[in-house]
């Protein structure tokens, strides 16, 4: 499993258990995230704290899951981005699409 999950208040926290989020694991990540949405979770917080780098295929997987979430009246937020991953989100304008928080506590309070 790539995502280790636990419930916290009204959110499902999904910790990515990877250092390198890339082509070799993006499809599995997408499948797991889609399952969480299909299981009825309305607010999934994807935690990138352990991730060193993200490639384009992993970003594509995240976007694909967000589209499904939108259709299910759910939402995905991201937390724990290192400075390079945050810059990458900005480069592809995903900072305008995802709610980005420093950590899970911030995500829960919507700070």
């Amino acid at each position, binding site marked *: 499993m790539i995502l280790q999950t636990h419930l916290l208040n009204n959110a499902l926290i999904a910790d990515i258990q990877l250092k*390198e989020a*890339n*082509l*070799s694991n993006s499809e599995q990540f997408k499948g797991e995230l889609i399952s969480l949405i299909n299981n009825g979770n309305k607010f999934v917080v994807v935690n990138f704290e352990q991730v*060193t*780098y993200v*490639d*384009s*295929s992993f*970003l*594509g997987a995240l*976007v*694909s899951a*967000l*589209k499904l979430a*939108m*259709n299910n009246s759910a939402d995905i937020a991201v937390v724990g981005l290192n*400075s*390079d991953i945050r*810059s*990458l989100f900005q*480069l*592809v*304008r995903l900072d*305008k*699409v995802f709610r980005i928080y420093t950590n899970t506590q911030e995500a829960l309070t919507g700070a």
Partner: protein
Amino acid sequence: MKKFVFNNETEGIYPLTVQIISYIQNIAKDIVDDHAGFRIKTILIELLTNSLKHMGNDVTRIGVDLKNNKLYISKQDKGKPLQINTRQVSLSWPLTHSKFSQNEIAIYGDDFGTLKGRVKNSNQLEFFTEDFDVRYVNKDTIMGLNEHYGLMIIARASDAFNYKHKPDTGVNTFTSVIELKQQ
């Protein structure tokens, strides 16, 4: 030009990226700030990922050169020429100018921007992006989001980014150029 060999194995992406960045930091000591470092890392990861997607078991060569504070990062292989299939056009090499309006082709995009290619000659395409300022993001914006970011990431992280195909040798070369500034 310093050359590095990529064996097209996923596990090799990050170690090779670190190795190349270390080399660049050595040859361009005072001109690689944090932002340039991010751009270089991003470009390398995406060039190597592109290679993984398209090259299978063959090797790819990454070249690094620094001239007049311009950093050139190139990826060279002998795989299939760049394939771009859009609703408007399917690219085949050599390119024919008459196929494209104003010698430009829209490759992919969404409300935030479009990746385009400008035909420089029958064997060369220069990538660039047209970016739009989206103030309000709604469900339609999200549903229309592009899910392919590789070439767009490299184009945005580079000051110039192009692709050349050599029909006589079958060599494909992507080259990214970053203008480094003296700190």
